[in-house]
């Protein structure tokens, strides 16, 4: 447990020293969302209709940009070897990496999400669901992203491969995330969507560290 805290602290320290990396992800999120009205026209009702989907899709795309920074620098400079030789099992390293990724990418995206919702005039009833789904969905995305990042470690042009691997796994989060916000706006119950998203998160929390650790061991061989 002590090792988990130490690794998490290291990751946070590195992320804060390179704060630009996280800022670019959030900037991409906002910019991509801002582009839609230019393409589809500024009709307020249509934008409000689109808001849940746009927020979720652009958040996913922004997160995709961040995954190849998860393990590649550590792999190239030998830090990953040292982490693997540390006292903590690699599963714990994987969990710490996912947690740090969420704190430096998922959380900023979650904080920026209402800003985009305001730009799109999302009806008031949708904000609660937006924040809840973001809170449940972004950690799932971080966890699944670590698996993809570990699997594509050391491969050339890993970024494209990573998207191909990760996007299909994240689609359920997108579907239920956007659907929950839609349901909240329409006055329907949202709890079944949220329970499913909670289920995804718990499943990912258990399974992805195992998969990530296995992939990292393979990469280090």
């Amino acid at each position, binding site marked *: 447990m002590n090792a988990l805290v130490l690794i998490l602290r290291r990751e946070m320290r590195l992320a804060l*020293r390179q704060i630009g990396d996280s800022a670019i992800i959030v900037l991409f999120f906002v910019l991509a969302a801002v582009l839609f009205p230019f393409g589809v026209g500024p009709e307020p009702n249509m934008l409000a209709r689109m808001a849940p989907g746009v927020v979720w899709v652009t958040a996913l795309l922004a997160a995709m940009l961040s995954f190849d920074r998860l393990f590649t620098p550590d792999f190239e*400079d*030998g*830090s990953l070897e040292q982490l693997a*030789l*540390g*006292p*903590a099992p690699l599963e714990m390293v994987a969990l710490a990496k996912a947690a740090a990724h969420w704190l430096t990418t998922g959380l900023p995206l979650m904080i920026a999400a209402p800003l985009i919702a305001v730009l799109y005039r999302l009806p008031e009833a949708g904000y609660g669901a937006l924040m809840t789904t973001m809170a449940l969905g972004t950690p799932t995305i971080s966890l699944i992203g670590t698996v993809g990042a570990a699997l594509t470690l050391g491969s050339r042009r890993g970024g494209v491969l990573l998207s191909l691997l990760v996007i299909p796994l994240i689609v359920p989060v997108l579907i239920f995330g956007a659907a929950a916000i839609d349901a909240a706006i329409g006055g329907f119950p949202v709890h079944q969507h949220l329970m499913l998203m909670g289920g995804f998160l718990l499943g990912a929390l258990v399974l992805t560290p195992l998969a990530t650790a296995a992939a990292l061991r393979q990469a280090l*061989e």
Partner: protein
Amino acid sequence: MRFFGENLSCVRGERLVFSRLEFAVDPGTALVLTGSNGSGKTSLLRVMAGLTRPTIGQLSWDDGPVNDDPERHHNRLHYVGHLDALKPVLSVRENLETWARLHGGTDKKIALALKKLRLKGFENIPGRYLSAGQRRRLSLARLAASDAPLWLLDEPTIALDAASVDAVRALIAEHRAEGGMAVIATNVDLGIVDTTSLNLLDFAAAEEDIWEGVT
């Protein structure tokens, strides 16, 4: 306390690097791995560290197979490889702290390690401004910053000046005097006294040999 390997073979990229290799390290001794480039010195060190699994054979510590509890094995070794595991955005002290704390190193030991590797006065310099020799020394400072009985060193003196080579030699001597073990892969004579030597070329085997061991 004894660290040994039996009947080790290693295949890297469909090439048999070494086979039927035996080694043993006892407290206070140093094993020097020699052999031409590509003879498998680094591969053997990685096998010893547990980063790579041997294709055949077994590593043991006091009669217990290392594979039974890999984390415990990791806890009793320091591995300094070709890559220095330094972050350009962290200072010298922060870089060392990251790894030393993970292995239970204290503030005192970290300060002492910096002094031993002649990095005193450079503590707050970011990693990106270090020269190749300084990077190497910072990497080697991990050895002194926390305790581990087994040191696995891959060409430890590359890029080091004469004074630093002396410092590394003293570090290894001190470690051995305290009952530590060292395995050093090198092609230059480090001037370390009283070592056992293992030439990897003695274990380079013909390709067809390896499959005999697999049943």
